[in-house]
């Protein structure tokens, strides 16, 4: 993770506030699904930095991903390639800086289209 400096606490807080704003203004999905946090439609195109598996030697990959839905706990993304469980991604959700997520599951939904279930994480000992 050394290739990208972790965002400051203030930036993280601002990113979280931005997520709050998004989830509070959205339409709730699966209200009776029994999830910890309700999910909301959030369909957008965002910039992402995909880090190599297990902090491997290869460089992080800059790309664009599509979002599907969002909650306080995580986000569902669409990407052209499969990612591995535990892989880290930095997402630019707002002007305040990147927000890190970790891939929890990955499923192919169409040709060269993978749905990624990700949870928000804090990095850099914050």
């Amino acid at each position, binding site marked *: 993770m050394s290739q990208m400096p972790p965002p400051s606490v203030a930036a993280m807080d601002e990113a979280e506030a931005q997520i709050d704003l998004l989830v509070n203004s959205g339409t709730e999905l699966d209200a009776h699904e029994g999830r910890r946090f309700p999910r909301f439609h959030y369909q957008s195109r965002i910039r992402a930095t995909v880090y190599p*598996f*297990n902090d491997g030697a290869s460089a992080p990959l800059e790309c664009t991903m599509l979002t599907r839905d969002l909650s306080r706990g995580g986000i569902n993304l669409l990407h052209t390639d*499969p990612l*591995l*469980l*535990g892989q880290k991604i930095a997402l630019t959700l707002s002007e305040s800086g990147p927000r890190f997520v970790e891939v929890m*599951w*990955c*499923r*192919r939904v169409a040709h060269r289209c*993978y749905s990624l279930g990700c949870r928000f994480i804090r990095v850099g000992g914050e």
Partner: protein
Amino acid sequence: MATASLQSRGYLPVATASLCPASVLDCDLFIQRPGCAYAELYRGSTYPLESADIEALRSDGVDHLYIRAEDANAYREYLCQHVLHDASVPPMARMQALREVTRVAFQDALSGSDCDRIVSVASDFGSDLASVVAERSIAFGELYTTLEHDYYTFTHVCNVSVYCTMLAHKLGVCDTAGLGEFAAAALLHDIGKRHIPPRVLNKPGKLNDDEWELIREHPATGFREVATRDDLTWGQLMVIYQHHERIDGSGYPCGVPADEIHPWAKICAVADVFDALTCHRPYRGPMPKQDVCDYLKKYSGVWFDAEAVACWTRQVGGEA
């Protein structure tokens, strides 16, 4: 049935083929005579077994003797010393010895939560198995009769490991280190099943949707458990994660198509299905080898890698 009964009374079966002439096994050996529900003393400890004794047992159809469960360590030491690393012992006998040596250690490790121990046992098993397979050509028919086909956890992963190693060797993987890594990975391929309740794993009837969901999670669960270890290679991790992926993308956990599936996982998929179908399960008997080959061929290039299926069915077909 008789074996299970003796095991429940504290005896462990030991394969007659794993016993070495003129060697001393430092524990008592027991025999179960036909029609008897109990084991009687066959040979006291420190008393050597001669070739004629072993030959007599074989000609009488006695393929197993028994030891007391508390003597398992003595038996393991005996196998390591006299059988496993002795190149003059036939490959099948060494293979059986290896299985016996690994069985107890692996089951011990599985019953605990110590992942280090599980990986360590698998690694040792992989190295030894690879050296046996790479050393001499093994006929499938002989191998098949040597293996057990009961689908207990250890039996299944052991069989899959042996099949994977043989298949990889036949497909041209010749370096012993690579074969050893693959063998170890195949022994670990179902490590995620440790977290599935036995009532689901051993359910005799049809699984409901929730139970299927639990089963389908095991590759991802296993992968998560070992993904950050630095003593497992990329290929080994992919065997654990991708052995239920299918060539046409219809597999799980991710549904990736052929070009995203690691070659070892493709081989493991063939070996895994072959063993699962040829084993006795609580809800059905074993399928004949030829029927399983027909099944693999039917889905060759669709679910299973065509080259691996062709190579494997040639092996089985040539010997069946």
